[in-house]
């Protein structure tokens, strides 16, 4: 928004007091163009002109000032006045000024910061005519003619105020779209004349210098404005807790690369592969046979096929036959209790029951295990929501229990109450009633034997 040094001297040359005195207003446009300012520069020029107007000491000549005011108008002549970015200046100048008479010391100590000093009545008359109804005659005048027009004074003194309300309204409308923050800016240049400094007082060169300082450069004061600025504290550093890395020596010598010892061993990858498949889906009969045959061929193989207690349920569900075989092979290992625990706690199903049933017939299982399994079955039956499934499961459990009892794998006495309650609860199911009868029978039989 600032001017370059050359532009400034061009502008000042253009506004020379002796230059403008007798120049017709309508020749300004072309003169301005001649000095090298194009349409794009107009706003920058206008801003600078406003600052010059605000500080009377920088633009002392009356003709100069009038010319400058006209310049503000002229640069945007093609548009309606309300679109002129400097319309506010006109409104301000045409305000009836009370201090016209009271403060003759204006030049020396401007009491009103940032305001353009008031203009004379002749100027006002000219300006108001200019913005309301410009005509050719008006533009044919020269600044000198306007200022020396004593007749106009008498005219205008009568109608002291000029009607700028229309312009004002449109300005307010325009400004209402701006945020108050944007409207709050004021010039940051304050006149602070030093009268004591007589040497430079009113010096042409000094004012030139000041204008350069004010209007040119990257951070020219003309570009800046003063407005309330919020305090925006920087967030303090996030507290540092446990963030730094403490280093302790680590013994990395323990970690060495491994030679694959199984190289050229004709390993049982096929078995492992089948086993891995068995965890996922039911194997075909030949596959099952193959797997069981391979496992049987090498007793230790079962430890190396990737079976872990956690995977047993999958195997049971998908391939109960293989699960039985494998569990039988694992009976001697130290892990078998873990396998049993998993088996007991897995969801009750036909397959798991089948596995347990077969196991009970094949080997002697720990009684706690069987008891736990039965309680598990019973509670599953009781809690299941689906009626159909419940009936199915109850039947299964009953048959299972009957076979256990008949085979004397469990001692009914230890589970009597639990099983009895189970039978009563599901007495509507035939198998349960059968089991109940069996229980009674056994009970009475026991009683008989004890009597004898």
């Amino acid at each position, binding site marked *: 928004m600032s001017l370059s040094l050359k532009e400034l001297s061009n502008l000042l040359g253009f506004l020379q007091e002796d230059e403008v005195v007798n120049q017709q207003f309508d020749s300004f446009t072309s003169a301005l163009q001649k000095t090298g300012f194009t349409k794009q520069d107009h706003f920058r020029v206008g801003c600078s002109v406003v600052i010059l107007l605000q500080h009377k000491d920088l633009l002392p000549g009356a003709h100069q000032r009038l010319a400058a005011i006209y310049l503000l108008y002229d640069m945007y002549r093609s548009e309606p006045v309300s679109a002129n970015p400097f319309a506010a200046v006109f409104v301000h100048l045409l305000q009836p000024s009370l201090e016209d008479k009271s403060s003759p010391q204006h030049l020396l100590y401007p009491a009103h910061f940032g305001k353009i000093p008031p203009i004379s009545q002749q100027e006002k008359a000219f300006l108001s005519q200019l913005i309301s109804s410009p005509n050719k005659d008006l533009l044919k005048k020269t600044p000198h003619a306007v200022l020396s027009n004593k007749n106009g004074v008498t005219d205008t003194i009568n109608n002291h105020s000029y009607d700028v309300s229309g312009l004002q309204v449109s300005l307010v409308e325009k400004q209402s779209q701006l945020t108050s923050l944007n409207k709050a800016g004021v010039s940051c240049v304050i006149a602070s004349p030093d009268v004591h400094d007589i040497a430079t007082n009113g010096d042409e060169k000094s004012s030139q210098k000041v204008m350069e300082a004010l209007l040119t450069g990257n951070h020219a004061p003309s570009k800046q*404005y003063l407005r309330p600025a919020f305090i925006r504290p920087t*967030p303090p550093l996030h507290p540092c807790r446990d963030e730094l890395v403490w280093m302790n*020596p*680590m013994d990395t010598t323990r970690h060495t690369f*491994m030679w694959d010892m199984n*190289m050229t061993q004709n390993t049982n*990858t096929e078995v492992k592969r089948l086993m891995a498949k068995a965890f996922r889906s039911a194997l075909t009969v030949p596959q099952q046979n193959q797997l069981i045959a391979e496992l049987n061929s090498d007793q230790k193989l079962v430890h190396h096929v990737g079976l872990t207690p956690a995977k047993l349920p999958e195997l049971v569900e998908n391939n109960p036959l293989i699960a039985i075989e494998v569990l039988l092979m694992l009976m001697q290992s130290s892990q078998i209790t873990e396998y049993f625990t998993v088996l007991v706690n897995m969801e009750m199903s036909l397959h798991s029951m089948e596995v347990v049933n077969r196991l009970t017939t094949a080997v002697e299982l720990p009684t706690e295990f069987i008891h736990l399994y039965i309680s598990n079955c019973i509670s599953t039956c009781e809690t299941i929501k689906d009626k159909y499934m419940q009936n199915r499961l109850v039947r299964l459990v009953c048959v299972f229990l009957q076979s256990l009892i008949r085979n004397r794998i469990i001692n009914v006495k230890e589970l009597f109450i639990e099983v009895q309650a189970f039978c009563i609860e599901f007495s509507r199911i035939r198998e349960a009633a059968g089991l109940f009868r069996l229980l009674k029978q056994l009970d009475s039989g026991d009683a008989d034997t004890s009597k004898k």
Partner: protein
Amino acid sequence: MSTDTNTVKPSTSFTEDEQHVAGNAHNCFRAGQFDATLGILKKLQKSHSNDARLMHNRALTEFCKSGKTKVLDFKKSLVKIQKLLQQSNKEEEDIVLNTEKNNYISLYYNQALLFYNLHQYSETEVILGHLYENLDGSEETYLLKIGLLLIDTYLFTYNPEKAGNLISVLEKNFLTNEDATKRSGNNDEKAKSTPTLGMAEAESLKVHLRYLKTLCCLQTKSIKSSKREIKSLTNVYSNSGGGGQQTNIVQVASVFLKSNFECVRSNYHKAYKLLGASPPPVATNVANGALQEGISTMYYNNLAVLHFGMGKHNIGSFYMQKALQENDAAVSSATKQHHLNNSSGNSRHQQLSTAKPLCVLNLNRRFELAYNYGLQLLYSGNPAAAFDSLLLAVHAFHANPRLWLRLAECCIHKCTTCASEGKMKGGSHTKKSNSAFAMIGSGTNRKVVINTSLPPLGTKSNNLTTPLPTLEFASVCLNNALFLLKEAMNGISWDTVIDIKKNNGSKSDEDQAPELIIACLPGAPLSGNDIIHLYASVLANNAFVTLTLGNGLLALEYSQQLLSLPRLSGCNRYLGNMYAAEALVSLDRISEAIQHLSVEKISTVSLEIDNNGMKSPGSDDGSVKSGQNNKAHNHNHVSQKATEFVSPWHFPSNINCAHGYMILNLANAHCLRSEHEKAQRLLRQASSLVSARQAPPQALLLAVYLNLQGGGNGLVTALLMLRHNSLVVTPQQTSFAAKFPKLVNGNGARPPTGNNSSSFESGSSGGDTNSAAPVNQTRLKSSTPQPVAGGQTPERVVKAKNNEGKKRNRR
């Protein structure tokens, strides 16, 4: 033999001959005769070109032959073999693949170890985790190897619980004969099942596991158990004090542990004493030189950590620098050493002398050090250097949200401090000490130009992602941090985050719910309150940055998010309100902004989360106190800098000051609504809260602005304020004001008529009594903010100015 699998499996089975040859190959490999091994393997491959194991062993041999320098080649060939295996199993499902992996334990273990040595612990963890899960009970040597590596990995990724579990598994499996003496019950069968280890081996494993256990305890910060573990460990060490070299390292390690323990308890001085007692170790033995030099890096690093804890960030960064130097030295000397050892046999390797062998890569801890160093620099007030250092670290730890926040903090602090420094020096054309205004010209043309524009914080850079310490980049960093945090939380509500923490706090170590833990490698992970605190800090910083970059809408969004968090530190609550207010003002919603600026809401600006203030973990000898001192120190450190020059952006050091700033902003807001008198009143209130030295430039500008808006009288006051850089114009400063009468009428000060003896002041007061009041004086008096003494000045000046006007009594 297989019926339905159509895989490209090893075509032919191996003959007994070949098996014998393979055994030879292994022997050669163990003896280090890699060329011979390679020869055998090549021969074998002729008949079995597609055998994965052969390929693997060949790759391994080639890798070892290169002195473990061809890391990349090895990595590539391992991946290639894996792909081959995967291809052959293409139609199989995942679970099959996972178990399949266990057919090639060596392959995957080696890959994991490779990742481990390259510090890529998360990859290591994944691979080993799979292997470990699918291990069947029999493979005990594998179990030990995998277990030990996995424990180390867990320790590096701060998973002390998992590591602890694994340690006990290993102890159960391999050290039961030790326990058997105590529990004579079922030792027989178990002793039988663990014949894999000899006595000496078991003994060293036991010590090693103890050591790892101690590290676990230190990571969980359970003071009691780490104390116990350290004690028993030192006992073990002193008992087993055998060979010279070994004990040296053991001693160093135990010293480190003890010091670490004290550090965990925030007893930094004690820790320092312990650590200082261990001399910076010198390489005593050539063979173990690398390890030793690694230790000296760690020594300096730990020293730096301690100093950081004590709040001595400058010393800390000095030691960090030293640690970095040591690290570089260690790396280069270890590389040299390695090649010296290797090339003695084979001249070909001399060409490769720049390639770093794997053990050296493992030794190199540059990124962790860079992380530590960056933090130290940031805290010692050197954000530019910190930025560079952290930028290096972010290459390795880009998933750490806290690191991204730190980077952003570097940018922000770089920009704010630089700008204020620039402002300090930049007032070149004024030569005045204060930079609030500049004088231009002389004589009647003299102008005062108020220095309105705060120095620009953001430099416009087109490329947002260029890593430069700019605010734009800060915004990128903060968005990364936010993204990482959100992803980690993955829809979990704050309540659950905190509740879990609360429950855990009440029921100590019990794990009842999966706690949300956000990993922040290389530092400790976050949980509970720490997460919320980090989240809040990220939001606060983001609000600051977006506000500064001019995006009020986004800034409002962030600050509102910040304020809606269920727990906030006083500091963040304060910032949230301040930023929200400013953002609202920039959106022209001033009345909403004013609601944010109520001082009553802010009772503290401490960095701690207000409720449930977590203390530093248990300490017995007043270490909490030292911890607090540190915090106070940190704070002082910041405010110390601030006293030199009040940056427009500095954070208020105490609650009064913070209130003052808030009231100033409130005054700003009212001023924008043209409620100038209210603004004046608030300004006065604020200036009573903020000491003159802490007053930010904005306050002065506001005061000047208000006075300028006030009219003629205020203009003088404004000039006085500018000249004295003070919100309050005191009688002492009237010497300047006294010049104004001269300026105006040129005939000097009026004769003193008052009862004061001091010339200027009496002159003024005397003048007041009998000289004219300006037309607008009454209005001005009410609107100027001058408290007490300052009130005289403008009046007198105005009076003097108007002394040519009509004289009348002052009422």
